[in-house]
């Protein structure tokens, strides 16, 4: 279980955010709210890109808020700039998997599962934005980290493409017991995923 307890963070200018919630394994939590309420800040705190003032973040009871970003049990898919322009899509996926090597079979299966089979040797600049996001999602899923953070990762996709990604996400999240935190502006996303919604004000 991902547990965020009494997490506080202050931005310059006196803005202060507080977070308190839990996500069970195989559960998706959608975070909604107007701009500037700290949705992306929450993801940055969990991923380790920002340091909290106080509070704790833990996975299965083990706190990781003092760990470096690369030592956290977390994968993130950002809204854009998820891929390195000079690396092929396959390399973009495999470079994010440290410690163990990823087999070609597993890689191809992940590409097929997300409907991007055949793009392995292409450069990110030569595929659409939607395909780029799915390549990033393939990497996040193959990294096998138990916590997945999605920062409006699919908001630029059309609805059909988005639902395709959500279907794959739901299936993989259920099968692997991942805790997913999805920042989204669109109410339809949470409705389609049938997940809990946390509204930040």
């Amino acid at each position, binding site marked *: 279980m991902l547990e965020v307890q009494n997490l506080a963070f202050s931005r310059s200018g006196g803005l202060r955010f507080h977070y308190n919630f839990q996500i069970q394994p195989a559960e998706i939590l959608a975070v909604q709210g107007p701009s500037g309420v700290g949705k992306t800040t929450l993801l940055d705190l969990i991923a380790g890109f920002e340091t909290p003032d106080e509070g704790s973040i833990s996975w299965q009871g083990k706190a990781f808020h003092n760990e470096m970003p690369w030592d956290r049990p977390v994968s993130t898919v950002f809204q854009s700039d998820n891929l390195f322009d000079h690396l092929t899509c396959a390399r973009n996926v495999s470079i*994010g998997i440290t410690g163990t090597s990823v087999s070609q079979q597993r890689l191809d299966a992940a590409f097929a599962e997300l409907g991007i089979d055949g793009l392995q040797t292409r450069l990110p600049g030569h595929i659409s934005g939607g395909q780029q996001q799915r390549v990033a999602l393939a990497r996040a899923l193959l990294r096998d980290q138990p916590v997945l953070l999605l920062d409006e990762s699919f908001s630029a996709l059309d609805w059909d493409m988005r639902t395709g990604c959500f279907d794959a996400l739901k299936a993989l999240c259920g099968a692997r017991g991942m805790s997913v935190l999805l920042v989204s502006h669109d109410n339809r996303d949470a409705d389609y995923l049938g997940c809990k919604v946390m509204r930040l004000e």
Partner: protein
Amino acid sequence: MSQSVGLPGLPPIYGIGAVLLAHVFFNAPLMMRVLMGALSGIPAAHWRQSAQWGLTEWQRFRLIEWPALGQVIPGLLALVFLLCFTSFALVLILGGGPAVTTLEVSIYTALRFNFDLPRAAQLACLQLLICALVVIGLTAFSGPSWAAMPALLQRPLHQRGEQQWPSRLTDYLIITMFVVIAVLPLVAVIVRGIGPHLAGVLAWPAFWRALTASLCVGLASGGLATLLAFMMATARTRRVRAGRSVWWLDVAVSLYLAVSAIVLGTGLFILLRPVANIFTLAPALVLLANMLVALPFAYRVIEGRMAALAATHDRLCAGLGIRGWRRLRWITLPALAPELGYAAGLSAALSLGDMTVIALFGSQQFQTLPWLLYQTMARYRSGEAAALALLLLCLTIGIFLLFHLMSRRIGNQPHA
């Protein structure tokens, strides 16, 4: 050039007029490149809005183009001033004698001909002081880097009035004038260089010795300047990431601009003369001085791109655990390859064309192509000099293109 084109009534090829004209030739391409960079940095949306609103040429210039140009013009003027102020070879060759001299040439004369070291040191200090003031002024202006890579062209977009003949005629006239200014001297070198003397020069043992020396100095100083600039840019990016100040690093690198080749050479000359034979150390000193002179240019090319890459890659790499050698090998070097190649090509080309440092340390035993060319001109062997100039031109352009194209190729290759 006047001899080559054979036009009567052109100003004499020596003296203040020739020096001024040569500096215009020399700096016009640089100015055009920087101004082009500023214009291509204007967001595409502004051009689209301008087309949609039907802005006239004057309105476009005032609202869109001038704000972008105005950002770089003061810094650019300071830079061109600096380049002209520290110009050595053009004044030495075209000055025509003591009537037209500069601080640079005076330092050289004091050092090499009068052996008046205190006088040379005083003049070098004066030169350094003036240049440092200009450089401090230069760093005060932000804006597109003056050594940045050429920007990619945007998709064509029709603007109001640009298809009418007065605009098109003006464009043609301006472009033709620029081509004449930038290309004619090169055409003159090629026309005069291809001739019976070319084969003769290729048979000179001195030519091959000078070519070898030039290649060694050019390639080594280009490579070392790029390596050093890369390391400094990496250090700067690290400090920015850690929230530490970097202004002193920027100022220190910019101050290298103030230290012209002759000032640097004078310092080395005064420092080492009592303890070693300067002319034995000449290859190493020429290499060192050329590397340091090229360093700010290489740094400017690399640093901007590295900062931009860090902005997009830092979070991603941190999240994916791509660090250290792995990040350097797979992310930084391939993504930065075009800039590294450009910096190396630029630094090597600057070193290959150097006449200043070699004028201080050159001898019969150690000559580079520019020094051999100057000596050939001094002996009034204009045919051989033209052939040498052509060979030097080919070598400089060839080396620059080699680095530039190779690195572009590496950068454009998909890395699987």
